[in-house]
């Protein structure tokens, strides 16, 4: 079995970016300087991932205020409004308010990919989009638009985003549906999420695709629906919920190509112990077949911990993936030797 590692999503902002955005808010920054500074800060984040042996990297989404914001800001008929707690984190997102079906005004992903894919050499660049079901359920909708219609509309726009991103050079597409880990979410929402993720993945051409569920492992019936998505990998959080995620994989298996297991705790600054990570992987392996591949990743985005720790955890993930491959007799496909 092949094993490799990658970061799940966004990174925290280093001091330079915090200062830049503060100055930006006051209108003190020349747009060209902003792009240049963000690119250099993102390069550092990309470099850390390459050094950790990841064959697919993210640009860190350092300028995204929350996962919905770049899209809510780039589309007509939706506005970011009041703050609301983002899952069980001490972090708040702005509730997108939809007044009608969204329409694209400007592209979000493709320009980034054009900027960052060349910086990611020799790795590929991953793009991440919010899943339509999470997006819809965490938004406010007024003006008679039905939620299922909205989810469909969002999926269409995201599919267009992904198509353009892959054309621009993205090699991996990830759809995030963290709300599927919510114990109140049932089979219907999961089935819709899987269906819409399939449509988005369908626009990804040759790129690899993944549907990610995190912050808590989903219920069994939800996970079974997730597995029906036409994506290469499903990602599941194996840290929160005391390793239930690894058990789910052991019992119900993975996606078309395999599973991505969130084994490094992205919400704690404690340096994960090797034996603990290894035992999560061992538990999950029982549900995977020899020809499937395993991606080891972080339990969620790394942006909820301080910057320095996000870099340390990136390195730890790379080290552990290689060591686990050795210890468990798996084929490690990361690294640049």
């Amino acid at each position: 079995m092949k094993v490799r590692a990658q970061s799940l999503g966004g990174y925290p902002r280093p001091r330079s970016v915090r200062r830049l955005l503060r100055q930006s808010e006051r209108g003190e920054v020349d747009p060209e300087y902003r792009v240049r500074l963000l690119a250099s800060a993102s390069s550092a984040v990309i470099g850390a991932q390459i050094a950790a042996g990841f064959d697919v990297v993210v640009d860190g989404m350092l300028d995204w205020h929350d996962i919905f914001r770049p899209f809510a800001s780039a589309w007509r008929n939706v506005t970011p409004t009041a703050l609301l707690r983002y899952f069980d984190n001490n972090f708040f997102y702005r509730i997108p308010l939809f007044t009608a079906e969204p329409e694209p005004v400007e592209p979000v992903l493709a320009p980034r990919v054009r900027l960052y894919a060349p910086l990611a050499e020799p790795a590929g660049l991953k793009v991440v989009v919010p899943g339509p079901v999470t997006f819809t359920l965490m938004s406010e909708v007024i003006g008679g638009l039905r939620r299922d219609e909205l989810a469909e509309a969002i999926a269409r726009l995201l599919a267009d985003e992904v198509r353009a991103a892959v054309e621009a050079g993205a090699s991996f597409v990830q759809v995030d549906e963290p709300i599927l880990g919510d114990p109140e979410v049932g089979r219907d929402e999961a089935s819709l999420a899987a269906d819409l993720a399939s449509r988005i993945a369908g626009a990804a051409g040759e790129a690899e695709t993944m549907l990610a569920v995190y912050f808590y492992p989903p219920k069994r019936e939800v996970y079974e629906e997730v597995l029906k998505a036409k994506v290469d990998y499903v990602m599941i959080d194996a840290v929160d919920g005391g390793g239930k995620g690894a058990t789910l994989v052991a019992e119900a298996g993975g996606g078309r190509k395999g599973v991505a297991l969130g084994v490094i705790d992205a919400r704690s600054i404690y340096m994960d112990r090797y034996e603990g990570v290894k035992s999560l992987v061992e538990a999950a392996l029982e549900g995977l077949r020899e020809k499937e591949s395993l991606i080891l990743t972080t339990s969620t985005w790394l942006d909820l911990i301080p910057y320095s720790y996000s870099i340390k955890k990136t390195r730890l993930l790379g080290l552990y993936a290689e060591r686990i491959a050795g210890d468990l007799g798996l084929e490690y496909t990361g690294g640049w030797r």
Partner: protein
Amino acid sequence: MAGYQVPRKFPTTVVGSYPKMPPAEEALKKRRQGIVGEEEFHRLARDAIRMVVEDYLWAGVDIISDGEQTREDMVVYFAERLEGYSIGDWVRVFDNVYFRKPVVTGKVEWRQPMIIDDWEYARSISQGRPVKVILTGPYTMLEWSFDLHYGDRRELIFDLARAIRREIEEAIARGAEYIQVDEPALSTRPFREEAELLKEALEIVFKGVQAKRIVHICFGRLERILPYILDYPVDQFDLEMKNSNFRLLPYLKEYGYDKELGFGVVDVHSFQVETVDEIREAIDRLMKADIIGPEKVYVDPDCGLKRLPREIAREKLRNMVEAARIAREEW
């Protein structure tokens, strides 16, 4: 200080925080810059506490607070004053706003009184009205800090509980009648294991405490864990209700709720001032649900008022007090 009679039915109260008054902002700034020490800091904040207490008295609230004027953040305030904590690095809260998320780097222990000074000052000017002692609870301290020392949530939460209990003992020795522990983090992880972990911690916090024991929980899917919290060792649950449109009421009925209830009737996220009628109807709604009697109902806002403009906070409280007064005649 005796002499104020808290109404037998529908006493009014607050959850704790109040908009920061200018003298408090000034004191916090000086404390941050290291210009003043702890003692001077609390002395400087007294003007702010006085303004808050004046607003409460103007509105007619029965059981008040010090407005948490010296607390910039409910977790950081205690972390900075407990043994075992270090100042953390920057973590984002929203948009481009950050806070230094505290880090546990050693054994957590109580060092010296943390909130007693503000509370005693508020009491000295409350015209006999009781002032709640309000602390951030062990579960919220645990969840909203990083841990580099324990590597074990149970051990850490129990040490946090012991430290909080020590502060409560200080307050009890000085005559505190109402002790409230705030646990907003619990509703963000509404799982049975989490609720049971907090129960064990609260047993340490409150065991044998001779005062009204209150736990405040807000904003989240509390109905999921209601069955596991009902036997907490507390006299009162103080709950956000208005913002979630009183969704919890049928669940309270279903589970035969019989403790006292801090009944949140004022939305702290809305600048719209609830009318007296609106609040009275909320109280009627609770009473018609026939869950507990009026002597067990404490009327208060959903949560702390700190994010509201002062004028709106005052008006909301005044209407709340008036609605409770009318309700006393009806029920």
